[in-house]
């Protein structure tokens, strides 16, 4: 519920910084509306956006923790309660072809990672459909290298244009396998705006991509302007000698995530 009501300070700051740099009058109007919108949502405990997302949960489970009962059921119960009691929109269909709305936004997507220790870290990142639809996995060639990654990201953002509700946040996964690279791109979106990759090489690529995206001219809501993206985050993983998976996961400006440690 909190992730859907309260936009992070990092995103609010990014809107304010963007306002100073935006050249388009329409773009400035939109950024001001987003700031007002976040304030209303926070003051009144109502969702920032009517698309309250797919409940994507990152569960880091300490190997020394003993959980009585089924933790996935417990997470779904939390989602059911949060989306029902919090007046959040239920957007999940039970079967992709034959289904009906499940009525309580379950089931959640749960990514479980076993980690050392005696704690459970749960991060909930409700993900909107409009921006998710503009995301893509590409199995490239190792010869593509970092320049190929950059070109793919720029091309993906350009083709997305207005649809993912810019200013966007761009998550990029490089390496691993077909399914793992998509997970990396999603995980990248959990970072706060302005948080750079610890490896200076990838930190520089993130900065360069952000600058290039903000020269595309797409602007807030795609109506033309400077501020197309708030940030770009890269996550990497070792890869097979034959493969070069790259994934781009796009988030709208409602870059929501909330973490609790038990």
């Amino acid at each position, binding site marked *: 519920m909190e992730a859907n009501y309260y936009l992070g300070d990092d995103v609010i700051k990014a809107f304010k910084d963007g306002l100073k740099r935006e050249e388009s009058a329409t773009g400035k109007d939109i950024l001001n509306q987003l700031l007002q919108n976040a304030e209303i949502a926070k003051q009144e405990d109502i969702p*920032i956006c009517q698309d309250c997302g797919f409940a994507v949960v990152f569960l880091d489970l300490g190997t020394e923790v003993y959980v009585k009962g089924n933790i996935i059921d417990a997470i779904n119960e939390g989602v059911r309660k949060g989306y029902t009691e919090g007046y959040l929109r239920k957007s999940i269909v039970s079967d992709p072809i034959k289904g009906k709305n499940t009525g309580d936004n379950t089931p959640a997507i749960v990514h479980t990672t076993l980690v050392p220790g005696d704690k459970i870290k749960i991060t909930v990142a409700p993900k909107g459909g409009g921006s998710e639809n503009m995301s893509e996995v590409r199995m490239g060639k190792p010869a593509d290298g970092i320049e190929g990654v950059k070109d793919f990201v720029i091309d993906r953002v350009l083709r997305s244009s207005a649809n993912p509700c810019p200013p966007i946040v761009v998550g990029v996964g490089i390496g691993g396998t077909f399914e793992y690279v998509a997970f990396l791109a999603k995980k990248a979106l959990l970072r706060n705006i302005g948080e750079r990759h610890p490896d200076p090489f990838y930190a520089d690529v993130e900065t360069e991509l952000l600058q290039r995206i903000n020269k595309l001219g797409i602007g807030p809501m795609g109506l033309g302007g400077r501020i197309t993206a708030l940030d770009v985050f890269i996550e990497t993983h070792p890869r097979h000698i034959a493969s070069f998976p790259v994934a781009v996961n796009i988030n709208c400006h409602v870059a929501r995530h909330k973490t609790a440690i038990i």
Partner: protein
Amino acid sequence: MADVTRMKPPLSDEDILKLKIGDSVLITGKIYTARDAAHKRLFELAQKGEKLPIDLKGNVIYYAGPAPTKPGYIIGPAGPTTSGRCDPYTPTLLAQGLKGMIGKGVRSKEVRDAMQEYKAVYFAATGGAAALISKNIKAVKIVAYEDLGPEAIRELEVENFPVIVANDAFGGDLYQEGIKKYKR
């Protein structure tokens, strides 16, 4: 903000032809929500030549599926959804007299062509500004397809709903022009 045009549906050809891409418009009056699921049903009825549950003549459709209404509120947060999902059905609805659409994101060539043919406009609202937009909605009534939940057709009474003309009836496309203007 530049000059603001005020519009009150139903809209005439004359109203539509006054609008150019980039114009700021404040809409007051009745509009209807419909997403792609409701569009599919309207489209199928229109194809069979049957009567639609709402009269589209001169009217405006808002691509939106609001969040649930909190007690004491008129409506839950209700921002625009991606318009492109309605594109396959839109030319048929324009032929039925639909004059305006409010949403977010780019439209297909077929829709843009049909807007010129039938004289209609596409307005962009601010995606994600759902809490703010809900303050411009003064009354709401479900008028069709209640079984679709958030996707049901709702009649909204709006006041000064701020939108921008993204596609006009002359073939103008702000999404293309905007990028041309600000590309470095």
